[in-house]
């Protein structure tokens, strides 16, 4: 659509190193998953114990 072609994006300044890292993607994916697992473990420990009651009782009236 001609209309949209008028919108020019500034050339993204990507870092070269990102390209070189590309072959390691699957390893990175596993690393990311392990990281998320660890984070979820940590968050499990601080979450309110009774989610249903907690959510039900959280009522906030009179706001802008």
């Amino acid at each position, binding site marked *: *659509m001609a*209309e*949209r072609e*008028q*919108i*020019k*994006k*500034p050339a*993204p*300044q*990507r870092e070269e190193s990102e390209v070189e890292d590309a072959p390691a993607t699957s390893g990175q994916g596993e690393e990311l998953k392990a990281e*998320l*697992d660890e*984070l*979820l473990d*940590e*968050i499990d420990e*601080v*979450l*309110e114990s009774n*989610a*249903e009651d*907690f*959510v*039900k*009782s*959280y*009522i*906030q*009236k*009179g*706001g*802008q």
Partner: protein
Amino acid sequence: MAVPKICGIETEFGIAHTGTEDANPIAASSLLINSYLSEVERTGEGGPAAGVTWDFEDEMPGNDIRGIAPLGSLAPEIETHLVNAVLTNGARYYVDHAHPEMSTPECSNALDVTRYDKAGELILVRSMEAAAQVLPPDQELVVYKNNSDGKGNSYGCHENYLMARATPFFHIVVHATSHLVTRQIFTGSGKVGSEAPGLTTAEVPFQITQRADFFEEEVGLETTLKRPIINTRDEPHADARHYRRLHVITGDANMSEVATFLKVGTTAIVLAMVEDNVLPREFRFRTPVQAMRQVSYDLSLTKPLELADGTSVTALEIQWDLLDQARKYADSHGLDAVGGPVGEMVIDRWEQVLTSLEADPMSLANQLDWVAKYRLIQGMSQRHGLRPDDSRLAALDLQYHDLRPERSVAARVGLESLISADDARSAISDPPTDTRAYFRGQCLKRWAPSIVAANWDSIVFDVGDEPLRRVPMMEPTRGTVDHVGQLLADCDSAGELLSRLREPGSR
């Protein structure tokens, strides 16, 4: 040239009083703030000005930029009887409706707003700790920095920007609308489900913003009902002949400093460009209210938004266009109006975030709230095989915004910090140096016993031997350290300050 984009944020926090059957949000909010004020008075740290109350003299939230308010519109009411404190950092800390609310002092740039927003969080944390000293051991006040209770009740995080009165309002409406609708892709704090009438969690399992569900009008005066994308409150808190204050009510409260920084920084630049009339293209949505929700519901960031001229465009495309214009504007006009080097920082971060949103939004899990939250919600759903409407997901959503350090989920997801711990801490008690907040904060620090009341544009002194004296501060860019630093240093008392101010040519 655009007037300096003096800006600030006012945040209404969610509050829960646990361990009691008859919790009352107004009483809880009052207890929270009064506990903090007593604690600070006792320790002498982070001083609010003891006994100094807010001065309602210039509050006119019912004034409409368009002239007379339309019949049937509901102007906000002023609640003068509730706790209302002015802090030595220039901020206002008060009970608004049924919520504790913090307004940052006036700042000259987005990084300072982010710093005072962070200081505000620290003050709320201290307030919870102070309240715990007063309450029975099985009770607690818990504060949430979010905008919705998940049951259709919303509370705001409003931004304010100084604008030139001469800029035509309709001109602001068009460009501000296109920015406010599309900036959601980086300002959103994320939400499980939808609170728009007729939509279920099955249809919208997760959306980008907390607030989009609550907007029903394009332009209007209300803030609690029929919320408009562009709010017309005309209450400049400054010389009304020269200025207006654009009151932006669409934003989410952010846990991410990057999101707050970009939210305020990009908006200040867009408004400066509107004032200098450099935006060549208008993006008029066919249905702005629908567009607002559409952007919030589209996690792929690819769905086109219909424009009034029959063409269509994506939120990302509008943001790329605004960024492109901002780069040109920086070259042609400079960025002094938005904090000079901070303006450059905003533009660089804006580009980096748009680039990442386009390539892989999930790569921004350490920068944007909605991405960080979405990653957790997805991870938890998969781990436990949860349906979108499982209350564990709603609970995780709420607890992302819990301000208690030992419970906060946002504090654990590795969000990038722009403000050092020292800078945030000093902002609890010290005002910005380059707006009139400096004069307000320093006077409160040094002469609180001689001050009866203060508000955004004046301070009322009582030095005992003469009638109460109001010192007006109608110019937000004056009263800075450069302007009054020496004068304040030279004065030993409030009385001396008043007599120096009375000398011809002193201000």
